[in-house]
């Protein structure tokens, strides 16, 4: 009897438990940090307050960072001008809120939320449009050249920031949150600011929505495949350029959303805020692994939580806590926590 297949017994090596555990380890870092924070602080109510504010901060940073990391993963473009969208988003959003002050000032949660929603939509529309123009004018001519990309996008950052000064004036703008989002609620003896809870909710919804988009839709599949092997996706007939522009615009709009959220959180906006946030965003993107959305999410939560815990425990160390975190993570995993595997 002849067999067509050569005689062999294929064995599929199962992934050992330790390797599976290593892959999941970054996910465990957040709960570990939360538990460590609890042990170090000792007082449950302050711990809860700090955890919520750390999560809120982390979510906002994640919203800003997600676009940047995807743009890098997909097209190998590093956009130092991303911070400009944060500032522009904050200014547009806050101006809209000022325009809707009778809704934002009314003691009704529905009207307040509608005002915030409109402000966010306005900010996202403007920053999305700006992102499209930015991609066209600034980024497109320098594909594939990292050095020029860095230089040119820094130039774009300066120009946009200065235009904010020209349009809105050089002074910082103070604002107050909408009426029903002021103050805090008490929960198990811990004071939780209402706005922070809202920020956590928005961040979580966004993360889940993004994950579903990436895992369950066709466009998400194309983006993920494009990150891993762009040439192959193009060979299959998808125009990755267009997908990339779409991701760039979406990322810019998300940066604008992050800007509005951050402006409402700080209750003051300046043209330089985007530049300041960019430092945290870069740290998050690096420790998460360039190109990885999940990594950026975990990184953002770690940065937010750690900064809040350390600021409470040892205020002087808070300044360097992020650098310390980055150093530690890069020593552990030089490519970041969840590096994107490039099929090249």
């Amino acid at each position, binding site marked *: 009897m002849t067999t067509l297949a050569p005689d062999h017994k294929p064995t599929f090596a199962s992934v050992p438990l330790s390797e599976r555990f290593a892959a999941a380890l970054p996910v465990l870092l957040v709960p570990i940090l939360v538990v460590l924070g609890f042990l170090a602080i000792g007082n449950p109510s302050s711990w809860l307050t700090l955890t919520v504010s750390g999560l809120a901060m982390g979510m906002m940073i994640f919203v800003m960072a997600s676009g940047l990391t995807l743009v890098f993963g997909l097209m190998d473009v590093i956009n130092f001008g991303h911070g400009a969208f944060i500032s522009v988003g904050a200014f547009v959003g806050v101006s809209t809120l000022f325009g809707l002050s009778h809704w934002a000032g009314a003691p009704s949660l529905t009207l307040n939320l509608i005002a915030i929603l409109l402000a966010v939509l306005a900010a996202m529309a403007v920053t999305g449009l700006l992102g499209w123009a930015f991609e066209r004018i600034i980024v497109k001519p320098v594909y594939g050249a990292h050095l020029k990309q860095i*230089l040119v996008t820094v130039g774009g950052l*300066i120009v946009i*920031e*200065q*235009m904010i*000064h*020209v349009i809105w004036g050089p002074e910082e703008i103070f604002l107050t949150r909408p009426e029903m989002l002021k103050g805090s609620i008490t929960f198990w003896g811990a004071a939780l600011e209402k706005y922070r809870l809202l920020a956590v909710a928005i961040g979580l919804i966004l993360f889940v929505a993004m994950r579903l988009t990436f895992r369950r839709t066709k466009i998400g599949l194309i983006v993920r495949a494009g990150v891993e092997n762009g040439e192959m996706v193009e060979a299959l007939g998808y125009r990755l350029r267009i997908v990339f522009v779409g991701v760039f615009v979406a990322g810019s709009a998300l940066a604008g959303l992050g800007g509005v959220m951050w402006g409402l959180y700080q209750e003051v906006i300046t043209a330089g805020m985007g530049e300041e946030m960019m430092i945290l965003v870069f740290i998050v993107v690096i420790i998460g692994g360039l190109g990885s959305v999940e990594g950026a999410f975990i990184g953002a939560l770690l940065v937010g939580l750690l900064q809040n815990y350390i600021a409470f425990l040892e205020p002087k160390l808070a300044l360097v806590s992020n650098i310390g975190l980055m150093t530690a993570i*890069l020593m552990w995993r030089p490519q970041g926590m969840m590096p994107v595997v490039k099929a090249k």
Partner: protein
Amino acid sequence: MLKTLLSNDTPRSKVLTIVVLIIFLGLALAPFLFPGVRSLDTAARIAIFIVLAASYDLLLGYTGVVSFAHTMFFGMGAYGVGLASLHMGRGFGAILVGSLAGAALAAAFAFLIALFSLRVRAIFFAMITLAVASAVAVLVSQLSWLTGGEDGFTFKIPRELGPANRLGEVAGVKINGKLLNYYLIFTCSLALFLLMLRVVNSPFGRVLQAIRENDFRAEAIGYRVVWYRTVATCLSAAVAALAGSLFALWLRYVGPDTTLSFSIMLDLLLMVVIGGMGTIWGAAVGATLLVLAQTYLQDLMGSAASATEFLPLLSRLLDPDRWLLWLGVLFILSVYFFPTGIVGRLRGDK
């Protein structure tokens, strides 16, 4: 002799030779050609920023690595001299110790950052330097017991270098300690500039250029890319720190605004890009142009802004505070259209 001094890297263009000669003579004879406090100050700034831009060009132009921490190294040198003079008392010993300590600290920092980022991806370096530099800038403004915080601090330099040290008159110009200080800075800057020229034209510099063009191939030939990049980073950081020491010596003051601010970093990027990346001469031309423009053009913008007051938007755009806007536009345009900068154009490179 001259060729040896310039490490065989002559300007290679008639116009550029003339420009470089004008810069050199202008700086060498500045006190006599342009008497006045302000012009002497401008000349000293030009000399120091030429060194700083040249050291940055070693990274950006020759190694192809973007760093945003160069002002941090500059500041380390400046604070080194300032703190040493403050705590050791005025004297040349304090200045020497301060400069050397600053340079050593800068090189050590650069080494650490480079090891962390360059070993993975060169692009990490830009982001990590940005993060570290901003953390250090915040730290300096917070640790006011050591650094004087936002205000910085003034310190005393040796009496021989102060304006009170009068030595007579030459050609109608009073020779005093301030002039000596200028010439001290000028000589040190010239020496450092020639050193940078030497470095980039050495075999080491060639390897750096090879890495810039194709790091993969350089590695394949057998050069350890990471080590070359790391050494270039350390060297550039140390020279930047020495430039910072000179700057502190000239100002007799150190503070975050004059040494660490992000706007100086941007100026530096502009100097190197406009002058011409990958040529040390470009750093000289770019630094001279930018410092001159900053000192004298801003006045011009002020008058332009007041002249166009009837057009509110234009007037706002021309406001001297919006200086950076125009620099930004210029920066983008020069990266697109003059990637080799002024020197590249003059030399007729593509």
